Each structure stands twice: as C-alpha cells, then as structure tokens.
C-alpha cells in the first residue's frame, strides 16, 4: 500500500529543492557578473600583453557573448557538472574538486559525528542531573565555546600545540607521500579538535534543552513513579525522544558543515574545498569559484532534502497528512 501523502511530500520537497537550486545558481551567476573584475584581468595585467592576446582571452572565457547567452551556457554547464578548466591552476576543475571534496567531507563529517555522539550522551546526562555541578560547569563551558570565533580558537591551538609544543604539523595534511590513515589523523587532529569542541558545545546545549522539555512531559513522571530504574528512564525513554530534534540537527549540520569549511581551512591550511574557494575567489578564478560555490550549495541542499525526507518518515503528522 503506497503511502500517498508521504510520496506527495517527498516529491514536493524534491521539486522545491530543484527550484531553489536554480534560483541559487541564478543569484550566484549575477553576483559573479557584478564583481568588478573579470577572470582574465590578472592574466592580462602585464603591459607586454598585446591586444590580440587580450581579445583571445576574452573569447576563451566567452565574455564576448551577450550576457543572456552566457547565462544559459552557465546553467547548462552547472547542471551537467561540466566545470571547465581552472584559470589559476590550469587543471580541470573537476580534478581539483575530486581531490578536495573527500578531504573536506572527511574532516567535517568525522567531526560532526563525533561531536554529536558525545553531545547526545553528555547533554542527556547533565540534563538529567539538572542543577548539579556537572550541569553548571558543562553549560558554562559550552556557552563559552559556543560563542568563540572558531578561527581564533584554531589559532590558539596552533600556537600552543603546533608551534610551542610541536606535537602537530602546522599544515593540516600529511606532506609526504605515501601517507597512511594514521598520518592523516595526526595531521588533522587539531582542526578536528577545534571543530568537535565547538560543535559539541552547541550540541550539548541543544540536547540539554530538548531533554529538559522532554523530562517535563508527564510520561516521564509516570515512568519514574512506576519504579523503572533511573538509567532506563534516562536513556530509553527521555533521551530517545529528546534526540529527535538533535538527530535532525545532525543531518542539517552535516549539510552546513561544508559551508563553514572556509574559515578553518584557511587557519589550518587544510587543502579542502573551502580553501579552494577562497584561493579561487582571490585569484579571480571564476570557473573554480563558481563550481565550488555550486557544489557547496548543492551539498547543503541535498543535506536539507535528506533531512526533510527523514523527518517525513519520522513525524507521524506528515505521514498521515502530508
């Protein structure tokens, strides 16, 4: 028996996502148009460049075509994942992306997973012990870390652990080939640590709040009154229900993780997608910058889509009414 409301819901979300993607693509296209520079500007700065060469550059980048025509070419290329060749590095953009996306996914994915696992446990526990010392201290620490600028704490960690103590390399990726998985872990330990700490802070706060609300529900009171052991109530009844918003948040976090990559990759010189974006943008490497932006936006959209679908399965109201 097909669950029509659910199917309707999912299709609706798919359509929404696609339209949002198109709109985002359009907006970014116009933003790049509005930039006060063109990708060939840096290449044709030298006075030795002859006008014919400059015209060839313009033609190569397709800027001799009218704007609307370029827009449609852009849309077609983006939707077919045909990204062209990077201006700054001279290699196909897809190569760059293929090299870097797994790294960023690894770093941020791993950090989100760890932080959420830890966050759920810690948040549940301290919410149960509301008013205890652990509660107060965890809340204060989480609050402070939540409000810290990530790049700053990253710089401090770099200063203390990489520079002063020398435990970790200054660049967050193994320098020498061949490298093992352990080498990767060693090099990326600091950014992982920073990400986990910051993410953990928010997760703990969220889980705690969610738990507090759940604990306020009557059925918890009933369970305790019934004499069910505290541990069981804590984990089997309260936490499992309080986890719902956190679980959704987890999927969303994965989605948004990529977007925030930019800053930390800059601080730790981690060769991932974020650093690629910044470097491309500053070197007016339009193909790479546009492609990177597109991929990042796509990941976020897909992440949200998955979250919506999961939500659809979980929330009975949607299952029933759509």
């Amino acid at each position, binding site marked *: 028996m097909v669950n029509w409301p659910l199917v309707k819901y999912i299709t609706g979300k798919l359509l*929404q996502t696609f*339209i*949002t993607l198109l709109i985002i693509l359009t*907006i970014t296209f116009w*933003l790049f148009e*509005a930039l*006060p520079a063109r990708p060939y500007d840096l290449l044709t700065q030298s006075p030795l460049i002859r006008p014919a060469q400059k015209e060839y550059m313009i033609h190569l980048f397709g800027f001799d075509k009218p704007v609307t025509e370029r827009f449609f070419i852009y849309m077609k290329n983006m939707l077919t994942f045909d990204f062209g060749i990077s201006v700054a590095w001279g290699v196909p953009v897809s190569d760059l992306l293929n090299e870097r996306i797994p790294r960023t996914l690894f770093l941020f994915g791993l*950090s*989100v997973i760890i*932080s959420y696992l830890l966050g759920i446990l810690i948040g549940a526990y301290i919410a149960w012990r509301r008013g205890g010392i652990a509660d107060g201290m965890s*809340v204060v620490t989480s*609050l*402070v870390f*939540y*409000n*810290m*600028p*990530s*790049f*700053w*704490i990253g*710089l*401090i960690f*770099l*200063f203390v652990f990489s520079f002063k103590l020398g435990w970790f390399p200054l660049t967050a990726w193994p320098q020498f080939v061949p490298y093992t998985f352990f080498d990767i872990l060693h090099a990326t330990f600091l950014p992982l640590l920073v*990400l986990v700490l*910051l*993410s953990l802070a*928010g997760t703990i*706060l*969220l889980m705690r709040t*969610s738990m*507090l*609300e759940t604990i*306020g529900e009557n059925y918890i009171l009933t369970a305790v009154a019934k004499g069910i052991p505290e541990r069981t109530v804590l984990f089997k009844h309260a936490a499992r*229900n309080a986890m*719902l*918003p*956190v679980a*959704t*948040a987890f999927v*969303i976090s994965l989605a*948004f993780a*990529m*977007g*925030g990559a*930019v800053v*930390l990759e*800059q601080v730790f010189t981690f060769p991932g997608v974020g650093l690629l974006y*910044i470097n491309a*943008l500053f070197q007016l490497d339009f193909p790479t910058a546009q492609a990177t*932006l597109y991929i*990042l*936006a796509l990941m*976020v*959209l897909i992440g*949200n889509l998955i*979250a919506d679908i999961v*939500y659809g399965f979980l*929330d009975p109201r949607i299952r029933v009414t759509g």
Partner: protein
Amino acid sequence: MTVQQRPTDIDPHLREEAPPGGVVATKAVEPPPSEAPPEKAAVELLTVPTWLKVVKRYRKRLRATWRLYRQSKSGLVGLAIMFGFVFVAVFAPFLTPYTTDFVAPAEDVFLADWMRYPLPTNASINLTDPSKLHWQTPEGFNGDEQLESIVAYATEGYAVKLGVDLRAEKSAILINITSNQSRRIPVNTSLMFPVKFRGNLFFAFSEDSLYELTYETFTVKANVSMGFHPTYHSNLWNRWSNTNNLGALFYAMANSSTLAVYSKIPPNTNIGELQEKRFFDKVNLFDYNLTNASEIIGEPIMLHLSLAQNGSMIVVPTSKGIVAFKLDINTTSSGRVRNVTIGEIMWYVTYAEIGERWDREVTPIPNRPISITKEDPSEETGKERIILASSNGWLYAIDRVDGSINWSTTLVTTGLREPRPKGIYPSIIGDLVVTGMSEGRGFITTVDRDTGTITGNGTYYFTLPTAVAGRPDYIPGSNNYFFTSESGTIYILYLTMKLEASFASPGGLLASDAAYMGNIINNKGTSSGNYYALVTEDGEVFTQSITGAYRAPLPPGKYPSGNRYLLGTDVFGGDIWTQLIYATRTELVVGLVAAVLSVVLGTLVGLASGYYGGWLDIVLMRLTDIFLTLPILVVALLLAAVLGPSIGNIILIIAIFSWAGVARVIRAQTLSLKNRAFIDAARVSGASNWSIIMRHLAPNVLPLTFLYMVFTVSGAIITEAILAFLGMGDAQSMTWGMMLQYLRISGNTLRAPWWLLPPGIAITLLSLAFYMVGRAFDEVVNPRLRAR
C-alpha cells in the same frame, strides 16, 4: 512527540560551520504561545486600545518579565557584561592612555644595534690621535652609493685610508676593514680634499702647491705650483670626457685675498698626446676696484653652463658683498679647451645694498654664507640662483645672471624665533636644507628653493640641543635626512623633519662625520638596512643600520620612551589596549544595527506571510527557504567582493543572511495567533488588516522578535569577525576581527600572543553576553524551559 522550536536553535545559523541544531526550528509546527491567555485579551478588546493603554500594558509586562528574568543567574551575568561593554564603548577616551592614531615612538620600536671595529694600530702612525688626524669621507657622495673607505690625513704629511666593507653573512651584517693603507705623502698637507673623479682623486694643498694624489695609493700624480696657500675650495666641475678627448675638469680655490682656478684637460690621443694638460690662473681681489677692501670669507662656487656657452662663473663671498667672476674658457673650433682664465667681474652685490633695500641690517657670516641651488636650473623660472643665508635669519636669492635679488624670505617662524643659519645645502629632492642655531638650540629645516619659505607650510623644521655638525645626508630609499650633532648624537629625520630615530654616539666623541654606506641585504634576503659608518675619537669605527632592528610588535610593558603598553603593540606600533577599547564602539554598532535590520525585516515578512497567507505566503516562504539553505559564508564572501568592504556593507550582508530564520518563527507564531478569538473580535469590530497586524499581532509577537534580536547580535559579532579575518573587513574602521586579520597578515600569529588573545576574548565575551541574555529571556518567553 512534537518537535518544538526554540530560539536557541535558530541563531546558530549565523555561526560559521555545522550549526548544531541549526535549522531544526524551521521545521517548526507548533510554536509555543507567548503571553496573555486569550480570554483576557478578548475582554480588553471590546474597547479599542489607545496607545496609553498599550504603554501601561507594557509596563506591567515589563515588570513581570523582569521578575522572571531575574531568576536566571546567567541572564544577570550576561546583562552585566553587556552593560560593561556599553560603558567601555561610551567612556573609551577615558579608559585609554592614547588616541586611535597613536604609534609607538621610534625609540621603543627600534633597537639600535652597533657594530664596532677598533682601528688598526699602526706602528708608524698613531691613528687615534685626534690632534694629528683629520678624518674625511669622500665628498660628492650621494645617498645610494656605497662608502668604500674612510680616509684621514695628518698635517705632517701622511694619509691613512681604511677600506670599509659591510658584508652580509648568513643572517648578520659584518663590518670588515679590508685594507689599511697609510702612506707618507711628500707634502705637508694643510688641507686635503677627496674629490670624486674617475675612481677618485685627492687634491692636497701644501704651502703653495696643489697636489693630485690617487685615491688608491696616495701616489702623487701631479704637482702644480700655485704661488699661494688656499684655505677654501669650491665644488668640482667635471666635464671630462674620455671618449672624445674633449671637456675638462675645473676646480676653484681661494684664500682671503686670492682666487684661483685649476683646470686640466684630457690628452688629445688623436695627435698622439699622452699627458693631461693642466692650467692654473689666479687673481688678486685687490686688483679689482671693489668698494673698500674686501676679503674672501668663504668657499667659492663654480656656476657653469656648457663649455660652448658663455656665462660660467665663479661666485665668491667677500666681507662686503658677493662677487661673480667670469670664467673665460678658451676653446678651439672643434671644442677642445685651450686655456682657462678668470675674467672680469660680472656683477657685485653688497650686503649693505641688500640691507638697504630691505631696511635691515645684514651682516655676513663667516662660514659658508652662500650655497647654490641644484645644478639644474629651476624649472619654474629657468634661473640659477645663489642663496645667501644672512645672520639675521633671512635668506636671499640672487640671480646668477645679473646679481638681482629674486626673493628674500625670513626663516623666522613660531618654533624658530632667532634663526642664525650657518649652512645651506642643496637637497637631492630639490629644495634646500638650512642648518644653524636659534635661541641656543640647533635647527635644521627644508626650504623651498623658489620662494625661500619653509616647506610643509612652514612646518618642516626640527630643533636639537646642540648645533648640526657637518653636512646632512639624504637617503633616497627611505626618504630620510640623516646628520650628526656636535654632541655626537645621530639624528634620522623623515622628509617632514619629523624625528624618526636618534642615537647617542656609541663611544666617545665623533671624529668624523657619519657617512652613509648604502643598502646592505643579507644573503637570505630576510633583512636589509641602510647602514652608516663613523669613526670616534676613541679609535673605533662604528656602523649601524639607519633605524636599527625593528622590534614591533612589542610585548606589554614599560619602554624607554616612558610609555607603558598594557597589552603591547601591533606590528605598526599601535597600542593594542587602545584598539581594543575603541573597537568596542564599532562592534556594538555593527551588532545592533545588523540585528535590528534583520529582525525588523524578518518580522515584517513573517507577519505578512502568516497573516495574509495564500500566494504571498508561498512566495515569501520560498524566499526564506532559499536564504536558509544558502551556504552563508561562501556567498557572503562573494557578496563582500561585489559590494566592496565597508562597514555599511558588512552590516547589510549580516542582515541579509539573518532575517530568514526570524521570518520563519514569526510566521509560525502569527499563524497560531491568527485564529484566536481576539483577532476575530477585532475584525468584527471593523479593524483594518493593517491595524490588526500593528495593534494586535505585533505586540504579541514583539517578545519573540526581541529575543531573536538579541541572538542575532551575538551571531552578528562573530560573523563580522570572520568576514574581517578572511579579508573582507573595512580597512578604515577598527574592529576586533580586523585586529586579528592584521595579526595574521603581518605573519605574527605565532609570535605575539598579547595581540592574539585580547580580541578573541573580547569577541567571545560580547557574543556570550548577548547569548546569555537571550537564553535567560528565552526562559521567560518559553515557560517550559524554566526549572520545575
């Protein structure tokens, strides 16, 4: 199990990465209702509320809110911190010892770093006897050339030359005396002048002969009998040409009664000549019928035009006036010089005339009353001038062609009340440098050569405790003037005559002028400096980099200038504490304005969307969806690149990315309120849509709005810091994020913890304060969060 929305989940959207629990709220279904139970509201609405009643209602609510808020400890702490920052922002000038454009003075920032080398002891000559030796540095030396040797001569007839080499070795610069030549020269020199000519010559004067000595070995090249003993010498006019055997070298000398010119021409190799030819001519001042006896009192100046043109002259200062003698250069038709003689007097200006014309007393000054403008004639007037500095503090410009006065200007200004100029020198950059004494202090100033006024609108002058010794040097690379004072202190001034650095003489009195040695770069290319050298009477050669080693950023503490830097300085010398305090203002403005902007927009959208529903709702919600799912930082960077970095644009960008979350929540709240009884009642009693929204819905939504505003401030501060850190901040304004960015860019991240920690701590505290206030307020608005 319903998914509840809570504001704590919304604001992380503004933070950089993985917003934990980020967009959960947007999946909201059932918002918790805010205040007054519906029944009460319905009763109140049977009479249309006036603003007075609204205000009264608010006051009651505010009091109730405060009572609830007070129960949260973190809320109070947050509020306290917030007010602390506001206090700091308002009273910033009282909390900081310096202003925003303060820069640590040179003595704190530079570390004078001397290198010293004892003079070699030589059995035959005592090099350290100041009564015997006169140290010289080659004249005609302009800023960029490297000093190769320091020369001394003794009146008993010997000369010493120390070859000096500054070499860069690894990361240090070493001084090396490469050669030490001393030689008895067969003259009893009373005066010896190094002359810059083809690998350098020395002209040495003995009783009545002029000797030409080679620079390398002090070998006598020529010996011309003069018949008089000169005490002054002029500049060198070098028209020597090796390629076509034309041209000549001219040099004038004088004592109190005699003027002489010495010239030599290259051999005519076309006809097989091997020897240079030398000519000598002298005249006696008394042979000319000048009004009253005059004596020559200073150095002659050779003013020259090309050999072909007439008009070259030698200008001589005498006790009664300035005399210009014509220089007769006799050339063949092919241009070879045949003979050089001193000719008639072209013009003669008496000091009395100048004085009479200007009605003040002009007295000549004994040393160097005259200097000359640059060799190239003034572009404006096409004239070359003789500049006379008179002891009453006036400068006179005398036209070279006919001796008329072009201009006269006084040096007297607020800081120089009784200037007594002693020396005028042409500066490489086109104006004149005047040194002298004023009211017991030495002074140096730059003067425009076309008007005689002090440059910089009369501000480019500098006074020092003792007189300026010798001739100031100019270093083009760093635009610095550089000279020693008579007490042995070395001064380095910027173009504007502002003191950049001053160093006491490293040891003993100076025996020589400090001479510029050129720009030395070490092998690694990691450091370079302009170095100068000097010799002291204690017998040591010192070299030093013009500005010493650069030490900024400085760690916190007290420094030689007496300044105390609480948190140290940044790489430019700016005080970190001051920057931190003043940045509070910008941060608060940015945070509050961005938050207000985004929240107002979001509330309006939410209200409209929730109330009207239908197409408007769908369109607006799609819009908010898009803004919610954009990767913020990435697009913000792009937007900042498009709009340009400025505070207004940053505020705009933050607002653009923050309003969507608010809109969502307000819409949900509106939806829930829309169907309550009191709205129906209002509609029934004839209220328009607008008034319903403004009078009934808005006040109920307001607490939620305020809540989001507080959280948005918290997020805005962090977002601004990130954008600044990535390079998109406004360079004109100082914020904590910009401080961190400057830190990163200057490469001091790992070296200056006093610069790294304070801004981050400030950002964290301010953001934390607002966040805690928000959380506490959240507990007020959302009763379920309160402790049981």
